[in-house]
């Protein structure tokens, strides 16, 4: 019983992490059809930015509550900044090229940004644990849960709901839906696709940075954290169906719960879980659970 409860709570926390990391990736893919490897850099810059912000804030002895907000905003600002540089500086020159070529462009930028991190922050690692410590914990039976983790789950839920709402009810959201559905038609109706692309990329960049910012208190912010996240986020998005926010949510839940179950029941399998789930899902649903791929008409 306790194990089942633990699997669900751990699974939810891990799913929240995965969703926050993957949602920006799936949005960019849905709208721009770009599998964005620099998403790992957004995550890393977000985490480093949050750690820097934590240093600025808590070294002055400012209150904990505002600290987290400051970290998140600071990280998103950094995400916005590098997002602008990447999109305006390189990506817009390769729109319309093969999808795979664009992936490689983002891969190249990712390689460069990995070293930019070293140049800015040096090779040492950073910590930003204050918000998690300040949040405290509650006991549920034998299990102690971190309130910060619960907050993560709530945040993931809020982001998912807000995303759904924005896509359905805001003007820009509806524009996006049109572009996702059919690029050419959108252009024919006079939608400025270039502007939509830029805005989407920046939102995706900020979401990626936010993912890094909310994880920063839990981890040691160190070189290479972006690499790990890329494959993880790709797997989640592929399982859910590329370009679908609901898909990212379901994909994150599936991976999160499977991994938690593996750790509790068969820890030896932990290493394979994500890829096994991915291969399994794709074996039956080639384009993911919530795919929007339609067969071509002749």
């Amino acid at each position, binding site marked *: 019983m306790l194990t089942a409860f633990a699997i669900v709570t751990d699974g939810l926390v891990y799913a929240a992490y995965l969703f926050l990391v993957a949602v920006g990736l799936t949005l960019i893919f849905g709208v721009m059809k770009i599998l964005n490897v620099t998403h790992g850099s957004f995550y890393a810059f977000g985490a480093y930015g949050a750690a820097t912000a934590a240093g600025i804030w808590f070294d002055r002895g400012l209150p904990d509550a505002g600290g987290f907000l400051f970290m998140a905003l600071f990280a998103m600002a950094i995400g916005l900044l590098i997002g602008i540089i990447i999109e305006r500086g390189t990506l817009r020159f390769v729109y319309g090229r093969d999808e795979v070529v664009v992936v490689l462009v983002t891969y190249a930028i990712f390689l460069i940004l990995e070293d930019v991190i070293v140049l800015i922050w040096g090779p040492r690692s950073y910590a930003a644990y204050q918000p998690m410590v300040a949040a405290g914990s509650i006991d549920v039976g034998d299990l102690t849960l971190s309130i910060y983790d619960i907050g993560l789950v709530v945040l993931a839920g809020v982001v998912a709901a807000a995303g759904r709402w924005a896509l359905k009810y805001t003007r820009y959201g509806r524009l996006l839906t049109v572009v996702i559905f059919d690029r050419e038609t959108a252009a024919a109706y006079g939608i400025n696709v270039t502007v939509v692309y830029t805005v989407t990329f920046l939102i995706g960049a900020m979401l990626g940075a936010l993912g890094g910012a909310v994880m920063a208190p*839990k981890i040691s912010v160190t070189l290479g954290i972006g690499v790990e996240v890329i494959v993880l986020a790709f797997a989640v998005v592929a399982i859910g169906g590329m370009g679908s926010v609901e898909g990212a949510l379901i994909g994150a839940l599936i991976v999160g719960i499977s991994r938690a179950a593996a750790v*509790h029941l068969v820890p030896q399998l932990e290493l394979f879980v994500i890829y096994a789930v991915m291969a399994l899902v794709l074996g039956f649903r080639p384009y993911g659970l919530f795919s929007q791929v339609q067969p071509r008409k002749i």
Partner: protein
Amino acid sequence: MDIRWSLVASVALSLAYTGGASAQQAPAADAPPVKLGIVTFLSGPAASPFGVPSRNGAEIVIEALNAGKAPAPYNTVGFGGTKIEAKYVDEAGSTAQVVTEFRNLVQRDKMDAVVGYISSGSCLAVTPVAEELQALTVYFDCGTPRIFEEKARKYVFRPPPHATMDNTAAARFLLAKKKDIKLLSGINQNYAWGQDSWRDFVGAMKALAPKAAVDKELMPKLFAGEYGAEISTLLTSKSEALHTSFWDGDLESFVYQSQARGLSRRMPILGTAVESVIWRLKDKLPDGTIVGARGANGPLAPDNAYSRWFKQIYTERYNSPPNYPAYQMALSLLGLKVAWESAQKKKGSGKPTTDEVVASFEGISFDAPSGLVRMALGNGHQGIQDTAYGIYKFNKQKNEGEVVDIMRFPAECVNPPAGQNADDWIRDGMKGAKC
């Protein structure tokens, strides 16, 4: 066909390149310097905890040696009066890249010796190449005992002890503190180092305390970052200690997350590589954590002239105390210096050849910041040392962690005897250990 361009391009590039390189490295003084290639992680996740401290250690020690300012008997300039010139190379990349760069150091850059390698995989891959090229190679960190167990080596040395003693000593220390321990768990990264550490530790516990049972055996993937499920599992366990060989980023992440969920109130951590993070974690590392430093390094170092000297020069330059990779780098360079100078003395004058240095390296003993090193295993190619474990305590006044209750273990107590395979030795109950 484009193939012919490869010829032109490669020849042109290599000519331009070697030309440039040799011009750069033209001897400044009359006597050509001793050229050392230093290979360590300068990028990637292992750079911050291991690579950079060891590079710093190399820089500061080489500087001191070149100035003739190290404590006796290391107070001759450089190696035997000749200054040392170091070239630093990144260990990150595929094994093929590591091997290629090793060849470049030996064949293109004509290094007199290569000192380096943190990853055991790198050491295993470089070893046969070093033997083939007859290049003097000194490993300073990689832990696997396999290097000298698989085959006798001639040109390869590893002055710091291998990883076996980290876990045999950990078991002995745990039993010294908790004689009646009944249940324990482990969390180790799912890669060679984590798997080997856990196997050695469990093997040693079986031999020393057959009644102690293993509860949870967790093996999260390397750099997982999120340990919620692992911590929950451990919270449901009645284990009395948690063995881990986590290091740096993963260790810090695990400590933050387990602290937030009160795991340390249930069971203390026994960490074989905890020392590398104590300066950063400060009060976030729970008191009572059992601290290993892969030898008597850092706060576990014996109080002698060498450890005081090394800690002082390192701290002055880099504003933080040296951690164990820095100690191991210093140890390896001092060992090489001893071997070099004794070869030079035997020869009478001039630069000793590689074979002469190799001959005088085998089986020597020398003092290092972490105590006496004896090249006792692997036909005199593998060093052993006394090791130590202690208990972490945060000192609020100094705002600094310290390690108390230090217990030392003689080298022969925690290392296999010469000629015996470490795995077999542990499996057979660590016969012949002299404690």
